[in-house]
C-alpha cells in the first residue's frame, strides 16, 4: 500500500481554481449567460481538495450533489466542458441538457449528480455493491451535506452499506445549513458521528478546514476501505459563504450573522497553501489561462440543435 504525501502545490492549484471559478461565475452571472441555478461551493473548497488528493483518480467512483463545482474541479473533471455545460452549450458535458445541478464526467468516474437532496446516496451504495459483487478493487466516495441526513434514505443507505460491508466513504460536508434552516432547527441531537456509529459504521469528525488534515484522514480511511471493504463516514465542519442558490451573500436576510472569523479562516487556509507553494505565480497564471480558455470555448460553442431535445430519453 503506497502512502501518499500531501502535495501543497496541487492543493493550492485546486483550491485556487475552485475559488477563481466560483468568483468568475459570480462576475458573469448578471450577464445571464448561465441561465440556470448555481449552488456555489465557496467556503467549502478544502473538503473537495483534501478528499480528491487522497483518492485514486483512475479507480474511485465519485457521487456528489447539486453543490458539486468544487468536487468536479478537484477530482479533475473536464473543465472546458463544465463551463460549456453551465452555458447550456452543445459542447458541454451533457450538451446543455443537465447544467450546474447535474454535472458528470465518466472519464473520472464522476457520476452525474442529482438536485434532490439525498437522492444519490442510495445510488452510491448501489454502485459500491456492484464493485463488491464484481470483485473490483475500487471505492465509492459519496459527498453529501448534513441536510441529506434529515432524509430517511440516508439512514436506510447507511444501514445497507454496513450490512453488506460495502467499499464506500461517506463525506458529510456539514455547513450546518439547509437553505436558511440551521441544523439545530432540524435535528434534536447534533452529534452526527454518534448516530452513524450506532449503525455500525466507523465515523471520524474533522473540526477544522485544514486541507492537509482532511487529506490525511481521507487517505487513511480510503486505504482501510480498500483493504477491509467496510464503509467509513467522515463529518467535516465547513462554512457556506454565499447564498444556498445564486451568487449573492445572504447575510442581509438576517437569518444568520456574517461570521468574519469563518470567512477569514477559509482565506487563511488558501493563503497557507499559497505560502507553501513555491511557484504560486505560475499556478495562478495557469488557472487564469484555463478560465479564459474555457470561457472562450463556451462563448464560441453553439447551443444544441432543437431536434436534440428528443435524443437519449431511452436507450435503444
Amino acid at each position: 500500500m503506497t502512502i501518499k504525501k500531501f502535495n501543497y502545490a496541487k492543493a493550492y492549484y485546486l483550491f485556487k481554481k475552485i475559488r477563481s471559478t466560483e468568483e468568475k461565475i459570480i462576475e458573469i452571472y448578471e450577464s445571464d449567460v448561465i441561465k440556470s441555478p448555481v449552488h456555489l461551493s465557496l467556503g467549502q473548497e478544502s473538503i473537495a481538495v483534501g478528499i480528491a488528493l487522497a483518492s485514486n483518480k483512475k479507480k474511485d467512483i465519485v457521487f456528489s450533489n447539486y453543490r458539486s463545482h468544487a468536487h468536479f474541479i478537484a477530482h479533475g473533471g473536464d473543465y472546458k466542458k463544465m463551463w460549456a455545460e453551465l452555458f447550456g452549450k452543445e459542447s458541454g458535458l451533457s450538451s446543455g441538457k443537465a447544467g450546474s445541478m447535474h454535472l458528470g464526467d465518466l472519464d473520472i468516474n464522476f457520476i452525474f449528480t442529482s438536485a434532490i437532496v439525498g437522492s444519490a446516496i442510495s445510488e452510491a451504495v448501489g454502485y459500491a455493491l456492484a464493485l463488491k459483487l464484481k470483485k473490483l478493487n475500487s471505492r465509492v466516495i459519496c459527498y453529501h451535506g448534513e441536510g441529506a441526513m434529515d432524509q430517511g434514505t440516508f439512514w436506510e443507505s447507511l444501514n445497507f452499506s454496513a450490512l453488506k460491508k460495502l467499499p464506500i466513504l461517506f463525506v458529510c460536508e456539514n455547513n450546518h445549513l439547509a437553505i436558511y434552516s440551521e441544523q439545530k432547527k432540524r435535528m434534536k441531537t447534533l452529534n452526527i458521528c454518534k448516530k452513524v456509529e450506532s449503525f455500525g459504521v466507523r465515523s471520524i469528525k474533522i473540526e477544522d478546514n485544514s486541507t492537509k488534515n482532511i487529506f490525511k484522514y481521507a487517505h487513511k480511511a480510503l486505504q482501510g476501505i480498500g483493504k477491509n471493504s467496510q464503509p467509513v463516514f467522515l463529518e467535516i465542519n465547513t462554512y457556506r459563504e454565499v447564498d444556498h442558490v445564486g451568487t449573492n451573500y445572504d447575510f442581509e436576510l438576517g437569518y444568520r450573522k456574517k461570521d468574519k472569523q469563518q470567512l477569514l479562516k477559509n482565506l487563511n487556509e488558501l493563503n497557507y497553501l499559497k505560502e507553501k507553494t513555491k511557484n504560486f505565480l505560475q499556478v495562478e497564471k495557469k488557472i487564469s489561462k484555463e478560465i479564459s480558455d474555457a470561457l472562450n470555448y463556451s462563448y464560441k460553442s453553439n447551443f444544441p440543435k432543437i431536434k436534440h431535445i428528443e435524443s437519449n430519453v431511452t436507450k435503444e
Partner: protein
Amino acid sequence: MSYADAILSATKIMLKKNKDVFVFGQGVDDPKGHYGTTLNLHKDFGNNRCFDTPICEESMTGVGIGAAIAGMSPILVHQRMDFLMLAMNQIVNMASKIHYISDGKLCVPLVIRACIGRSWGQGAQHSQSLLSVFAHIPGLKVIAPTTPYDVKGTLITAIEDKNPVIFIEHRMLYKNQGLVPEGYYKIEFGKSRILSKGSDITIVGMSFTVVDCINAKKLLLEKSLKAEVIDLLSIQPLDINKIVISVKKTKRLIIVENDWINCGISAEIISRLVEKYKIKFEVKRIGYLFTPCPTTAPLEKSFYPSPEKIATLSYEMITKKKNWTPKKIKTKEIEEFKGPF
C-alpha cells in the same frame, strides 16, 4: 407451465446467461419465494445473486439504480405495487432521468417487478395498479403481461433492456397455466397481442382484465357476436397500430382498465385514435370504480370490472338494445382465491 413458474424460468435463464444479473427484494429468498417466482434462487445461484433486503423501498430502488449504472442488471421485486409509492422519488426523479441528464452516457438497466393484488379483501392499499402513473413518465418502460408465455418472454426482454422497466404482474395470474417454451426467447416491447379475432367489437384489456375480456367474448358468443380481444401487454411504449386496425374494422371499442379510468390508459388510447386517425367509432370505458378499493367481499366485487359488465355493454353497443342479461361466468382466478395474501 404456470405464470409464476414462467417468471422463475425466465429469471433462472438470465441468471445463468449473464453474471451481472441479480435478484433482490423483501422476502425473495424466503420459503415462499415470492409466490414461487424466486423460489430457491439463493440456493441455486448463491446469496450474492438473490438476497433479501431491509424494508426501505426508496433506498433499495436507489441501490438498484446505482448497481445498474455500474453495469449490472438488477431485478428488484416488490410484493405489491402499492409499495412502489415509497420508491417514486428514485423511479421518477432518478431512474427515468439519468440517461437523459447524462445525454446518453449512463443507462439504468433495472427491472422493477411489482405485483398487483386483488380479491379476498386486499383492501385499499394492497390492490392498486397505477399503470398510467408510470406510463406518464418519459424514460420508463411499462409492461403488464397476462399469459405465462408473455410473462416469460417479456421478462427476458426487460432484463436485457438498457432502460428502467416497470414490470407489472398480477396476483390472480400466478397460477394460470399456459404453453411456455423451456428455453430462452424474447418478446418485443411495444407490441400488443390479439387474443381472439372478431368483427363486431374491439375489446382491449390489460393485465388481469384481459381474462375478463376473454370471458366476456365467450358470453357474447351466446348472441353470436364476435369480439376481437386485444391484450395491451406493453403499456409504454403503446402499440396503437393494432387497435387502429381493429377499430377500423369493428367501429366499436371498449377499453377495460385494470385500474381507475380517470386520467388512465384508456383516455390515452382514445386520444391518440381521435387525434391522429380519421375513424368514426363508438367507444366506452370500463374500470375500477373511482373509490379506494373496499375490503368487504360484496363491495369489492362491484368495485372491479367483470365479464358480465363487459358483455352487456358490448351487446348494447352492437345491437342498440338493452334486452340481454348474460349468464354468470365463473372467474376461477377470483373465486378460488382464498388468500391469505
